[in-house]
C-alpha cells in the first residue's frame, strides 16, 4: 500500500471540524499557561466560541462529500453524522456562552473548564460518526470521562462532588455493560469490529447471544440518553452539577447518544430490528410517562428540567423506533429545536441563579416586575418545550406525532400526546409563577433582585445567548421550512438509513395548494 492510497483510505479531511476544536483546546491551554489565569476570562470564551463556530462552518463543507468513509472504515462522515456533529458543536457553543460568568462567579478556573468542555464536545462529535466498535468505545469514554470531570468541577461544593462520584460509578458500570455487549458482538461476528461487517457476518437470528448483545448495548445507550429505567442518576447529577454542564448533558451529550443509537442499531442489528424497536418503544413509553409525571412533583428548577429532559428524550425516541424516513427526519428536527429551547431555558435559569443564588421554583414568583427579559425568554422556552403553538416545539412535536401516526405507532403517539398535556402543566406552573403573581406575593429573592449589570465580564455572552435562543425558539416554528429541509435531506442522503428504511409505500397526505 503506497502513500497515496493510504492517504485516500484515511480520508483525513473528514475530521477537520474535530481537528479545529482540538486546536482550540490547545490554544486555550497554552494561552492560559502563558497569559495567566486572571486574564483568561477575558479571551478564552471567545476563542472557544470562535473555534466551535468555525467547526460548524467547516461541517458545512462536509455536507456534500463524495466519499464519507474515513480511517479505513472507522469513521463515517455521512450527512446524518454531519448534522449531529453540527447540533453538538452548536449546543456546546451556546453552553460556552452561558458558562463564562457562571464559572467566573464560582471562583474556579475558566480555561480548564472550557478545555474539558471542548474535549467532551470532541468525544461527542466523534461518537456521532464512529463506525467501528473500538472507535465507538473510545469516543464514548472521551465524552463520559470529560462529563464526570465537568460534573465535579465545583470542587468546593459537596453536592457537586457527590454528583460526580455517582455519575462516575454508575457511568463506569453502564460502560462495562456496553463493553460486554460489544465484545459479544465481536465474538458473534467472528472477529469483526466494523459495524457493516458485523451485520454481514451474523446470519442467524435465532441466537440468544445476539439478543443479549443487543440488550446490553441498548443499556449503555439508554444510560447516555437517560431513558427510564436507566435514568436514576439524572436528577442527582443534574442537581449537583454546575448548571452549564447540565445544559450540555441534556442537549449535546444526549444528541451524541441518539447518534450512536441510530448508527449502531441500524447498521449492526438489522436482523433483530423488531426486537430493538420493541425494547426502545418500551423505554420511550416509560420515559415519557415517568419523566413527565415525576416532573410534576419537583420543587427545584434544575431537578424539574432533569425530569423534563427525560420525558423529552422519550418523545425523541418515538422518531427513533419508527424506522421510516419521516421518523428519523422528525427526530432530527426535534433535536434541532430542542437544542434552542432547552438551552434558552437553562441560560435564563443561570442568569436567575447568578442574580439570586437559588434554583427553587417558588422563588421565581413575581419575577416579571423585576426582570422582564428573563421572564419573557424563560416563558417562551418553557411554552415551546410544552409544545404550545406557534413556537418551535409545537412544530417539532406535531411532526414527530404525525410521523408516528403515519407509521402506525398509534399507542406511542397517544401516550406522547397525553404526557405532553401533563408536561404543559408543570411548564406553565413556572410561567404562572413568574407572570401572574401580584406584587405582594413576590418571593424574597425577587424582592431583593439586583439590577442586572451587563457590563461585568461574561455577562454579554449570556445576554447574547438569551436573545439568540429566544429569537430562534419564537421564529423556528413559523419559518421552519429550512430546518425541515435540512433534516429530511440529511436522512435521505445517508446511505445506511436509505438501506434500512423499509420500502413500504407510505401514504402521503397531500395538501398541495399549487396542484397544477
Amino acid at each position, binding site marked *: 500500500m503506497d502513500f497515496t492510497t493510504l492517504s485516500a483510505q484515511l480520508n483525513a479531511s473528514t475530521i477537520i471540524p474535530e481537528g479545529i476544536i482540538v486546536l482550540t483546546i490547545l490554544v486555550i491551554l497554552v494561552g492560559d499557561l502563558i497569559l495567566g489565569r486572571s486574564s483568561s476570562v477575558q479571551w478564552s470564551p471567545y476563542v472557544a466560541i470562535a473555534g466551535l463556530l468555525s467547526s460548524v462552518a467547516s461541517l458545512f463543507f462536509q455536507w456534500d462529500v463524495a466519499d464519507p468513509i474515513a480511517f479505513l472504515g472507522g469513521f463515517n462522515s455521512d450527512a446524518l453524522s454531519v448534522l449531529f456533529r453540527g447540533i453538538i458543536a452548536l449546543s456546546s457553543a451556546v453552553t460556552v456562552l452561558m458558562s463564562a460568568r457562571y464559572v467566573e462567579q464560582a471562583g474556579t478556573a475558566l480555561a480548564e473548564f472550557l478545555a474539558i468542555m471542548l474535549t467532551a464536545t470532541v468525544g461527542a462529535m466523534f461518537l456521532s460518526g464512529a463506525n467501528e466498535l473500538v472507535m465507538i468505545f473510545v469516543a464514548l469514554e472521551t465524552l463520559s470521562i470529560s462529563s464526570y470531570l465537568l460534573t465535579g468541577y465545583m470542587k468546593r461544593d459537596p453536592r457537586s462532588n457527590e454528583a460526580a462520584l455517582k455519575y462516575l460509578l454508575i457511568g463506569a458500570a453502564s460502560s462495562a*455493560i456496553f463493553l460486554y455487549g460489544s465484545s459479544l458482538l465481536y465474538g458473534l461476528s467472528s472477529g469483526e469490529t466494523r459495524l457493516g461487517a458485523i451485520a454481514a457476518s451474523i446470519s442467524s437470528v435465532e441466537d440468544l447471544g445476539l439478543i443479549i448483545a443487543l440488550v446490553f448495548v441498548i443499556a449503555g445507550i439508554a444510560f447516555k440518553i437517560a431513558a427510564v429505567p*436507566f435514568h*436514576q*442518576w439524572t436528577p442527582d447529577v443534574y442537581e449537583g452539577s454546575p448548571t452549564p454542564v447540565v445544559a450540555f448533558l441534556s442537549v449535546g451529550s444526549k444528541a451524541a447518544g441518539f447518534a450512536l443509537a441510530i448508527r449502531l442499531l441500524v447498521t449492526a442489528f438489522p436482523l433483530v430490528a423488531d426486537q430493538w424497536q420493541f425494547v426502545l418503544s418500551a423505554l420511550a413509553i416509560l420515559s415519557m410517562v415517568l419523566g413527565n409525571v415525576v416532573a410534576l*412533583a419537583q420543587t427545584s428548577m434544575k431537578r424539574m428540567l432533569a425530569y423534563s429532559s427525560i420525558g423529552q428524550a422519550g418523545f425523541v425516541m418515538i422518531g427513533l423506533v419508527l424506522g421510516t424516513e419521516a421518523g428519523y427526519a422528525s427526530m432530527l428536527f426535534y433535536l434541532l429545536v430542542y437544542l434552542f429551547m432547552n438551552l434558552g431555558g437553562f441560560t435564563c435559569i443561570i442568569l436567575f441563579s447568578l442574580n439570586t443564588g437559588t434554583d427553587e421554583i417558588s422563588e421565581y414568583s413575581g419575577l416579571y416586575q423585576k426582570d422582564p427579559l428573563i421572564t419573557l425568554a424563560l416563558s417562551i422556552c418553557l411554552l415551546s418545550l410544552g409544545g404550545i403553538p406557534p413556537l418551535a416545539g409545537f412544530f417539532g412535536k406535531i411532526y414527530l406525532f404525525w410521523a408516528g401516526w403515519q407509521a402506525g405507532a398509534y399507542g406511542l403517539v397517544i401516550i406522547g400526546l397525553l404526557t405532553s398535556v401533563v408536561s404543559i402543566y408543570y411548564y406553565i406552573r413556572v410561567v404562572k409563577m413568574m407572570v401572574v403573581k401580584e406584587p405582594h406575593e413576590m418571593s424574597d429573592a425577587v424582592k431583593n433582585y439586583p439590577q442586572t449589570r451587563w457590563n461585568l465580564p461574561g455577562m454579554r455572552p449570556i445576554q447574547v445567548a438569551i436573545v439568540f435562543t429566544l429569537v430562534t425558539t419564537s421564529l423556528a416554528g413559523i419559518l421552519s421550512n429550512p430546518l425541515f429541509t435540512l433534516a429530511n435531506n440529511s436522512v435521505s442522503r445517508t446511505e445506511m438509513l436509505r438501506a434500512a428504511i423499509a420500502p413500504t409505500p407510505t401514504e402521503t397526505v397531500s395538501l*398541495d395548494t399549487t396542484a397544477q
Partner: protein
Amino acid sequence: MIQFLAETAWLVPLYPVVGMVLSLPWSPGIIRRTGPRPAGYVNLLTTALGLLHGVLAFPAVWHQEPTYLYFPWLEVAGLNLTIPIELSALTIGATIVITGLNLLAQVYAIGYLEMDWGWARFFAFLALFEAGMCALVLCNSLFFSYILLEILTLGTYLLVGFWLNQSLVVTGARDAFLTKRVGDLFLLMGVLSLYPLAGTWDFSQLGEWAKTAELAPATATLLGLALIAGPMGKCAQFPLHLWLDEAMEGPAPSTILRNSVVVATGAWILIRLEPVLALSPVALTTMIAIGSITAIGGSLISIAQIDIKRSLSYTVSAYMGLIFIAVGTHHIAAALLLVLSHALAQALLTMSAGSIMLNTITQDLTQMGGLWSRRPISGLSFLVGVVGLIGLPPLGGFWALLKLADGLWESRPWLLVVLLIVNGLTAFSMMREFGLIFAGQTTPMTVRSPENIWLITLPMTVLMGLTLHLPLVLQVAGLLPSWASLDKNVALLLLSSSSMGCLAGALVYVVQIVSTPVRLPVPAIQNLFANDVYTPQLYRSTIVFGVASLSRLANWVDRFVIDGVVNLVGFVSLVSGEALRYSTSGQGQFYLFTITFASIAIALITGWTLISQSFPIL
C-alpha cells in the same frame, strides 16, 4: 425599471409591516424623549412608499395578462403550503386604492388625533389593517385569504377598541369581533369543505374547476351558503349588520377606512368566489335576498338615525347589499365599479363628517344646523360625496349604478325597482343629513365651529378632487360603460329616482317646509327603524340565547363530568409523581441495582422465545 417594480409588487403589503414594526419603540415606555409622533411619520412614509410602488408598477401590468408568483412556505412530508400571489391590473389597482386612502386617512389622523397619547398604537394598527388588505387583494388563494380576513377581524377589534377606557367602545369592539367571527366560522367550514371537492384553493383554478364541476345540489347549496356567510359578516349584511353601527365608536380616521375599503374586503372575496357560488342557484338567490333586505332596510334605518356616523354606516350596509345583488346576478364588472366609486365617495363623506364632529364636539344630528356659512369646505366635500355616491351624473356612482341597472333591466326588472328605491332613499337620507348639519339655524353646539387645521382639510379636499375626477379616470381607462349601448330609459329612471330623493330630502330638511323633527303618522314604524329594526333584541333572543343555553349545559357537563375526570387524572398524576419521586432515593448502589435488574429483565423478555426453546422445562 417599471418591469422590475411590477415583478416586486408583492412587496407592497410589506411596507406597512415595516412601518408597524418600526413604530414599536414609541409604544409606551421605551422612547419617551421624542413623544409618540415619530411613529406616525414613519408609518406615513412607509404607506407613501407602498403607494408609490403600486403607482409606478401599474403601467407595466395595465392591459397585460395576470402573472402568478408562488412563495413556498412550508413543505414537509407531503404537506405543501405555498402562498400564491396574483399580479394584475386589478390587484395592483386595488392596492393603489387601499394605500392611497390609507395615506389620506393617516394625514387626517395626524390632525384628528393631535392631542391623543396613543399614536404609536394607532398607527401600528392602521398599518396592520393596510398590510392585511393589500395582502388580501394580492393573494390568490382562498385559504390564505381566510387567514388574512381573520387578521383584518383582529385589526377591526383593535382599532374600534382604540379608546379602550370607554365602556361603549369596549362593547363595540367586542361585538364587531364576535359578529365577524360568526361569519368567519361558517366561511372556514366552506373553505375546508371546498378543498376535497375542488382539490385547490387558488381562485383562478377554482374558476376553471367550477366550469366543469358537477356537485350534488345539496352540497353545492351548503357550500355556497357557508362561503357567503363570511362576506356577510364583513360587509355588515342582515342579520350580521349591527357591528358596523357599534364600530362607529372608534376614532374617525379608522372609520374612514372601515366605511370605504375594509367592509369592501368581504365584497372582494365574494367577487373572487363568484364562479363557485354560481354552482348553487339557492346560494345566489339567498345572496340577492340578503342584499335586497339589507339595501332597503339599511337605507330606511339610515334615515331614522340621529347619529352622524351611524347614519353613514347604514348607507354603507345598503351599498354593500347592492354589491351582493350585483354578484348574485353575475354583474362582476358593475360590482367592482360600485366598490370603487363607493369607496371614494364614502371615504369623503366620512372625512367630512369627522371634520364636523371634531370641532362641534357632538355627533348628534339634532343638535347641529347652520354650518354652511362656517364650514364651506366641509359642506362642499359632503355634497360632492353625496353626488359621488348616488346615481347623479356625471360622477362615479352614477356610472356604476347605471351599469348595474342596465344589466338588471333585462334579466330581473324587480331588482331594478329595488335598486331605484335604495338609490332614492339614500339620496333622501344623505340630503337629510346635509340639511340637518349645514342648513337651518345655528344651535348652541354649532356657534363656534370653524374649519379644522389643514391636516384635516387637505386630505378631504384632495379626496374631493379624486372623487370629482373619478369619471375622467375611468373614461381614460376605458372602464365607463359606453353611452350608445346603454338603455336611455334606465338612465332616466335612475336619474329621476336620485333627483326625487334629493328633492324630497332638500325640501324637508334644507328648506324645511315641514317642521322637523319629522313625526311619522305611525310612531311604531319610526321606532322600528330608529332602533335598528330591533336587531339587538333579535340577537339576544336567537344567537345569544342559544349560546347562553349551550354554555350553561356545557358548564354543567364541564363541572360535574369533565372536571371530575380531569381532577381524578390530575390527582392520580400528582400522587403518583409524589410517590415515584421517592424511587430516586439518592443511593448509588440502588441505581446500579436498577440498571442491572432492568438489563436482565429486558433480556429475558426479549429473548423469551429463544430461552424457552433452549430449556423446554420452562
